[in-house]
């Protein structure tokens, strides 16, 4: 059976629900299948592209990197079962699994086997657990099997090894001798006898090496003992032909000459063959932990209120909508602009950079070229909101939150291995972010009892269990800081999911919205212009308050300060001063202080005395009649400012074309007033790949599968969406 065929059968077996669950963790693959992502095949105009079908998906899933990607989702217990299956040649009998893990874990083993099959890594029809082709190879082994190196050993030397192990009848052919050596080193009686024959210090050395993973550098093990090292390099039997030098015998030869220890002089390594390790340990793994044991503590804040990050997100988008920031020549948003934004939002620069990065990931922010670059100079850009920022406001708050959390969880461009970034980088190579590490942390947190948290070390231990093949310790501080900002874990104290965060991850945003208590909608306006809001202030009220007041702290309750410049921004956005006052009066528990009213009215009085307009392009002519002619062209979208000046909302290039089409023969003018070639004119363009689609199910693949993915799965299987009889959700 080919790899692709085996995967196709496996996909049919797990059914539409299983396929949907599988695809939830592979967003980039889904984007390609839907052909709607920026890197979709049709976008890239790939020749011969056709929309993905089940054989295509099976073929892709069989590729080693996607096999590895799925293996990385297995928890330690499940991973060990898969590794055991690989050790047994890809097929595992139930009794072998129970013997390895212990009869008390029989039920857990069944569940783990289902999980492996649910990830389309194995099937359970031809055997209790049969890995699909290619899976065992991707799993690798936790050591070097004796067979791998025995093939490199001279036939005569194999005979010596076998005799030293007590094998009296040595086969004549090399391949048979390799089989004999493997069998001997897997035979506990032979290995025990061999160990009895070696000196005690050497037995101890072997135990230490096995406890340390079975492999070590020569320097680490033997430190600076040159004599010993020299002897090891000359040691039987790995030294290549022609270079064998028999030096003094050392006690180490007692191990190497029995095949219990191997020296690799090229890699400066010493290792205990995996077969020997397993025989000495009594199994492939010494323990089969179903869960990780860490101490928990109650959370400081149960976190049942609305996540404050949504108000911050709204503040960020409104700010950038009104005041775009300059982009870096290398792309992205620089440290200085981030710091300015941070001051405005009342966040640290790192938190601000994270938030801005996620909005870029969600295509809520885009860059616009404001001038074309040259051969030696990059184009100038500004960053502002896209049309989707408005669409986002129409989405239910907790779905917005889910989008933000997903953007963080799945980001492949967020370089957070060394803490939160202090600038927004785009086009960053995709090695910076480790989405698997973030998923591992979320899985680990979801495994904790409700209302409980752990220390940072405890979280690493948990995550290491949840995803043993993922490096979770590196960058964990920054990722926890991100989760605190996102409101998934409390702002302080032990790290555990907030009540709302747990529901979001396990059941989805709609379920979270249902459990959200009625949020407070009042605050206190004081004469010193401060506004004190209780914890969990209604998001809409909080977002509106943020439009008029600077958030000075949000350490539970939030303290805001009404600001003339913020109020002026609100007036810019079309609000009336009376609206501002009405809002404050409606929600304040205390009577509005007179001086606060004066503040608002004073801003209203001063606002708009000077006018600044956005003119994308302008027309100027010495002859006012020409301007009148141009004004007559509706397509030019011109407005007259003075007899010889008019401005247009069209880009300079479009205005030139429009006027030229009517025979007015305009020329383009540069910033210094000199005429420039039309070929130098850049057209500003907003990158708008597509609005974000909020999720409905749990973010950890629990709860009902995403309907869109389920439809896709049905489409692939040519089944009806109402037919779920063959569906399983085997991934957890």
């Amino acid at each position, binding site marked *: 059976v080919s790899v692709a065929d085996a995967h196709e059968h496996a996909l049919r077996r797990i059914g539409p629900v299983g396929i949907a669950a599988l695809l939830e963790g592979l967003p980039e693959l889904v984007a390609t299948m839907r052909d709607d992502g920026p890197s979709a095949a049709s976008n890239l105009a790939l020749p011969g592209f056709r929309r993905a079908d089940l054989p295509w998906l099976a073929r892709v899933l069989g590729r080693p990197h996607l096999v590895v990607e799925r293996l990385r989702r297995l928890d330690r217990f499940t991973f060990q079962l898969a590794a055991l299956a690989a050790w047994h040649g890809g097929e595992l009998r139930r009794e072998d699994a129970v013997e390895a893990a212990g009869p008390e874990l029989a039920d857990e083993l069944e569940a783990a086997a289902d999980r492996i099959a649910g990830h389309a890594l194995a099937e359970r029809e031809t055997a209790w657990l049969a890995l699909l082709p290619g899976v065992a190879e991707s799993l690798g082994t936790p050591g070097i099997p004796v067979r791998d190196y025995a093939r490199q050993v001279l036939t005569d030397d194999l005979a010596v090894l076998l005799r030293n192990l007590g094998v009296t009848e040595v086969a004549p052919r090399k391949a048979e001798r390799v089989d004999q050596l493997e069998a001997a080193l897997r035979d506990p009686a032979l290995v025990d006898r061999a160990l009895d024959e070696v000196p005690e210090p050497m037995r101890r050395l072997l135990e230490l090496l096995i406890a340390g993973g079975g492999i070590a550098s020569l320097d680490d093990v033997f430190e600076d003992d040159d004599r010993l090292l020299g002897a090891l390099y000359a040691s039987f039997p790995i030294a290549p032909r022609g270079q064998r030098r028999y030096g003094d015998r050392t006690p180490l030869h007692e191990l190497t000459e029995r095949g219990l220890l191997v020296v690799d002089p090229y890699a400066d390594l010493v290792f205990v063959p995996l077969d020997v390790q397993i025989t000495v340990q009594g199994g492939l793994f010494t323990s089969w932990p179903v869960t990780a044991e860490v101490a928990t*503590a*109650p959370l*400081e*804040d149960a976190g049942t209120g609305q996540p404050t990050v949504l108000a911050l997100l709204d503040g960020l988008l409104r700010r950038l909508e009104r005041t775009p920031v300059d982009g870096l020549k290398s792309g992205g948003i620089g440290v200085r602009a981030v710091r300015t934004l941070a001051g405005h939002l009342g966040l640290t620069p790192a938190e601000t950079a994270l938030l801005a990065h996620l909005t870029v990931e969600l295509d809520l922010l885009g860059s616009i070229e404001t001038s074309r670059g040259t051969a030696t100079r990059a184009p100038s850009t500004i960053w502002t909101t896209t049309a989707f920022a408005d669409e986002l406001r129409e989405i239910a708050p907790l779905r917005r939150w889910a989008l933000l959390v997903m953007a963080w969880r799945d980001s492949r461009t967020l370089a957070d291995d060394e803490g939160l970034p202090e600038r927004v980088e785009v086009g960053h190579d995709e090695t910076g972010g480790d989405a698997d590490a973030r998923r591992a942390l979320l899985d680990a947190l979801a495994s904790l009892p409700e209302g409980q948290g752990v220390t940072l070390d405890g979280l690493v231990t948990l995550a290491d269990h949840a995803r043993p093949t993922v490096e979770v310790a590196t960058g964990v501080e920054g990722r926890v800081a991100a989760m605190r900002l996102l409101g998934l874990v409390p*702002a*302080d*104290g*032990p790290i555990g999911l907030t009540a709302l965060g747990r529901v979001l991850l396990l059941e989805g945003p709609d379920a979270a919205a249902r459990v959200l208590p009625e949020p407070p909608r009042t605050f*206190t306006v*004081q*004469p*010193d*212009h*401060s506004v*004190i809001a*209780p*914890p969990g202030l209604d998001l809409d009220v909080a977002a509106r308050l943020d439009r008029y007041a600077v958030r000075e*702290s949000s*350490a*539970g*309750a939030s*303290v805001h300060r009404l600001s003339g410049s913020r109020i002026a921004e609100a007036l810019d956005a079309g609000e009336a001063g009376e609206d501002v006052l009405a809002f404050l009066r409606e929600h304040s*528990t*205390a009577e509005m*202080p*007179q*001086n606060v009213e*004066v503040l608002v009215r004073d801003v209203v009085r*001063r606002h708009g005395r000077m006018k600044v307009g956005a003119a994308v392009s302008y027309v100027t002519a010495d002859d006012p009649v020409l301007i009148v002619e141009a004004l007559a062209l509706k397509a030019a979208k011109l407005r007259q400012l003075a007899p010889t000046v008019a401005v247009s909302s069209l880009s300079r290039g479009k205005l030139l074309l429009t006027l030229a089409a009517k025979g007015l023969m305009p020329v383009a003018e540069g910033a210094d007033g000199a005429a420039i070639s039309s070929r130098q004119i850049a057209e500003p363009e907003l990158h708008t790949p597509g609005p974000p689609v909020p999720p409905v199910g749990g973010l950890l693949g629990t709860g009902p599968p995403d309907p869109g993915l389920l439809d896709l799965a049905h489409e692939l299987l040519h089944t009806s969406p109402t037919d779920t009889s063959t569906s399983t959700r085997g991934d957890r």
Partner: protein
Amino acid sequence: MVAYDNPLIVQSDRTVLLEVASPKAGDARAALARFAELETSPEHIHTYRITPLSLWNAAAADVAAAEVADTLTTYAKYPVPDAILVDIRDEMARYGRLRLVRDFDTGGLALTSDEVALIEEVRRDEEVGGLLGDRLDGNRFAVRMADRGVLKQALLRIGWPPADEAGYVEGATLEVGLRCQLRSYQADAVAGWWADGSPAGGNGVLVLPCGAGKTVIGMAAMAQTGTRTLILATSILAARQWITELLDKTDLDERDIGEYSGQHKQIRAVTVATYQVMTWRPGRSADDLDDHGGEVTEPGAPPHLALFDGQDWGLVVYDEVHLLPAPVFRATARIQATRRLGLTATLVREDGKAHDVFSLIGPKRYDAPWRDLESQGWIAPAICTEVRAGLTDDERMTYAVAPAPSRYRIAATSPRKFDVLDRLVARHADDRVLVIGQYLDQLQEVADRLGAPLVTGRTGQATREERFAAFRDGELPILVVSKVANFSIDLPEANVAIQLSGTFGSRQEEAQRLGRLLRPKADGGTAHFYTVVARDTVDQTYAAKRQRFLTEQGYSYRILDAEETR
């Protein structure tokens, strides 16, 4: 679990919000004040901050970490973050693990600890190490008497505040009897400072609004200490008011009290000196003394600082401690064995050195929100009003093209303010009005316009006292004053102040000027504090800064257009 009736919101950034309308607010405030600093007290919600310093001061006053935790959890509306309780326990546990004690063998001091590792750790700090002398034994290091204050500052900086158990020199005995009854808050303030005579007390700062009787508190502290006392005041006028009060409210007589100023150098059992004479250096004219503070730039130590030494003082009182000049700071670091009392209406220092006041004079021992005393009738209720007058078109153009440094003066001295002034003076025809300003030519013009006498730094001492006396007696209904009247001038009958210009946005100046009005009125009437500002200018910007300060103190603040004063 939310306890809606409780008044506190304990924040993870270590601030504590107190809802004053809560029925439990009074109890919570009393408990909270022992370990948290009051930062702002606007009308509805007061903000306290728990700092390492406030916790160490609480520990020094024998407040246990458990009591602090209990206060927070008992009065909190929402669950208190565990991390805060852990921090409190850890911070308070730091206090007293190092002790500063007498070393009777050398006659000096010793820094000691039961933990040798700790004393080794602090010894490795560059500044602390430089202040420690020989190792006396395993865990004791010699400390010079004169380094006591500096060492405490250095240890505080690295987070290991020592328990100062070296005690005080008692000073020469002087029995002082009070002839007046202390108000309850005055007694509380003195008791908080004295701390039952323990080494943990006997130093520190009492913060009370002007008019709350800080002078009486100073005298009560003298009576409590029973020792020769040096009092430092801001000016010669203030010094003489101290002397008058001492003669009036204690059983001391003229032979017991000396004036140490530019004019007199009397050293007696109670000596009242001015900051100016203490910081005077040879080369400055005697005329400079007592009228102008100014910066001292001449090298060498001011000779009159010697007054601190050799007189066997048992107590030093620093009036208006927020104005303490740098040379006196340094001298104070040397006299940590003498009891110290700082008095002020506001610990705001525009130079940001409030922390130095705490570490050298001692921690804040008492801080009463102004509004509380006002509601109890101890100080007059006050209404703060800002009146905005628009500049004429010509003035606006002059202002617009002026260089930045000149703009405040142009705005602050706008003649458009005079119309407002006239109307306010007319409105308060039956009141006692102080017109206060920064610029002498503006004030002269006002004095001429109103036909009122003017008091500035240039006004002779006798003339000043004569005019203040006439104002007190009601002969003069209006007095025009410069910044010389900011501090310690007792004008209890003044009930209206009209401020035309000030030292930019100085908050302490605002507090002091308002303070002129806060002494309770015989008729229980309300005081009015007007600030006239030029609209849409930097004058208004500075006023906004002062507005915030006053509202944070709990004063209601109205803003009127000049037309509304008609």
